[in-house]
């Protein structure tokens, strides 16, 4: 491990270190709580010469992502970060970035959406980008934030993919929590993994003018969109390769999903972000109490990791999905639960699915809550509830 140093970093700082270590060329971002320290730290890296990059100071997130799009279109390696309303203000540009097939990477300190004003963490902002054709990864430790951003560049820039990628983590409970993180002593080992090559996409060059983002008439638009479908599909195998190569090269193992204590458990709690860590500790407590359940972390949301999930789900009696955002008025208002249900039904599995909503606006979820959720689900199973008609809104008054 001599190539690494173990230092205390928040997830925000881990994101900034990752941007530095992949040697980004351009950063355009607008500060918003709880993302602000990402940009502050990158500005420090630029000011003290650790990173040679152009920092574009903009007046809004709309412009931040616009600047990133312009920069990426010239072939630059580009980074941005935001939260909540900032991500909403970027919303129309999300589709332009992916439609133009620009491999921009963005860190998101996931935060509740206004109104009422909440600066605290949940995944309402991330889940609202669901159909924007961005690769979407959700980390549950600061280490994973650092590693995922590095992996995101490699996957996004792959010529079979060329899609932007976002790496999200819990606003505050991760963005502002210091944890030990291994970062590269010298970024050359990271750049060996994500080398800066001649861009594999068509770039803007005054000497060789081209038009990008022109009108897509009804006789062409659909084909462009279908190419995005193919690109997202391709990102599955590319991500698989990226995770394998990263794990082999650096010894930290990653996949689309992560599991804990699944051997011999026929009930699992599935969640994402920092809450997975709390679920792990809840699982340990339950084990001591003689209750054997496992936990599954959804690490990649887009592309949806159906194959990896079904491998686990097919042998389960029940999966308890704890969502951290609400899809108002949906068939099942837990956005991830809805996806799980689709996968389960597609393969005709008999696995029961119980949907829970928790941690909205950073309402605290303790290990005891997770244990109580499992116990509640055991009762539901006893009553023969296979699929919850509606999510259980855990902890709401």
């Amino acid at each position, binding site marked *: 491990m001599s190539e690494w140093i173990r*230092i*205390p970093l928040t997830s925000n700082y881990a994101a900034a270190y990752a941007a530095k270590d992949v040697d980004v060329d351009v950063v355009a971002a607008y500060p918003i709580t709880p993302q602000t320290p990402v940009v502050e730290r990158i500005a420090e890296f630029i000011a003290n010469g650790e990173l040679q990059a152009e920092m574009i100071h903009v007046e809004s997130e709309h412009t931040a992502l616009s600047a990133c799009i312009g920069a990426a279109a010239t072939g630059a390696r580009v980074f941005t970060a935001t939260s909540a309303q900032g991500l909403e203000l970027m919303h129309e540009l999300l589709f332009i970035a992916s439609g133009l097939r620009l491999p921009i990477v963005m860190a998101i300190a996931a935060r509740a959406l206004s109104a009422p004003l909440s600066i605290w963490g949940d995944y309402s902002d991330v889940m609202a980008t669901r159909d924007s054709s961005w690769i979407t990864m959700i980390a549950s430790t600061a280490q994973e934030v650092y590693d995922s951003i590095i992996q995101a560049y490699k996957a996004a820039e792959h010529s079979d993919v060329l899609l932007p990628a976002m790496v999200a983590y819990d606003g505050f409970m*991760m963005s*502002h929590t*210091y944890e030990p993180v291994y970062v590269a002593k010298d970024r050359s080992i990271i750049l060996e993994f994500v080398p800066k090559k001649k861009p594999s996409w068509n770039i803007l060059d005054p000497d060789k003018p081209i038009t990008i983002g022109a009108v897509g008439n009804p006789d062409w638009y659909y084909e462009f969109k279908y190419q995005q479908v193919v690109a997202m599909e391709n990102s599955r195998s590319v991500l698989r390769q990226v995770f394998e190569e990263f794990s082999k090269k650096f010894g930290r193992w990653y996949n689309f999903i992560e599991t804990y204590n699944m051997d011999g458990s026929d009930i699992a709690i599935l969640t994402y972000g920092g*809450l997975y860590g709390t679920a792990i500790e809840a699982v340990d407590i339950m084990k001591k109490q003689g209750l054997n359940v496992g936990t599954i972390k959804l690490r990649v949301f887009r592309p949806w990791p159906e194959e990896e999930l079904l491998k686990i789900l097919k042998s389960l009696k029940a999966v308890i999905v704890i969502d951290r955002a609400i899809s108002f008025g949906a068939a099942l208002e837990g956005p991830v639960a809805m996806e799980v249900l689709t996968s389960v039904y597609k393969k005709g599995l008999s696995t029961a699915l119980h949907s829970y909503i928790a941690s909205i606006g950073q309402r*605290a979820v303790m290990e005891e809550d997770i244990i109580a959720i499992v116990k509640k689900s055991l009762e539901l199973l006893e009553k023969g509830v296979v699929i919850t008609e509606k999510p259980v809104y855990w902890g709401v008054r």
Partner: protein
Amino acid sequence: MKWYFMLNLKRVEIRWHGRGGQGAVTAATILAEAAIYQGKHAQAYPEFGAERRGAPVRAYTRISDTPIYTKAPITEPDVVVVLDSSLSSSIYIEGLKKNGILIINTKKSISEIKKDVSRDDIKIARVDATKIALEILKAPFVNMAMLGAVAKVIPVVDVMYIEEAIRESFRPKIAEANIQALRRAYNEVEVA
């Protein structure tokens, strides 16, 4: 001197109370940083909300010999550290575990503190960190002195690493003065 209260715990959870500007968040962070430099596992996080000078502030530190997975907030700390004794005792004593430890910056005696908190199931440590800070730093920045008291009372992190973390966080002159304050509080903290 053997105030090794916490050595039987695999994980220690600490809640810091101060007022905005006193450095409770910095102290919580530096302790976690020191633990990490020492090779342990640690988390530190502030209480999230409006940050205003003078307003009550909380910060948290978790230290463990084994990896920490949870992202749940600390609601029942093993240790409470109070930087400002003008805070209401009902606020800082809330949730403190049975057999937990209260480490407080105060001029009061231990028996007076006992009366304030009306708990006889906790241990109490006191130090006049304000006096130390005023004498050494010429300003009431008590956070590093309180860190010295913490290092003594719950020796889960070696002082050497705390000093290293202080040197990483402050300019040399300020770091050395704070280390002096830390060492003095380490020697002067009283326990009952």
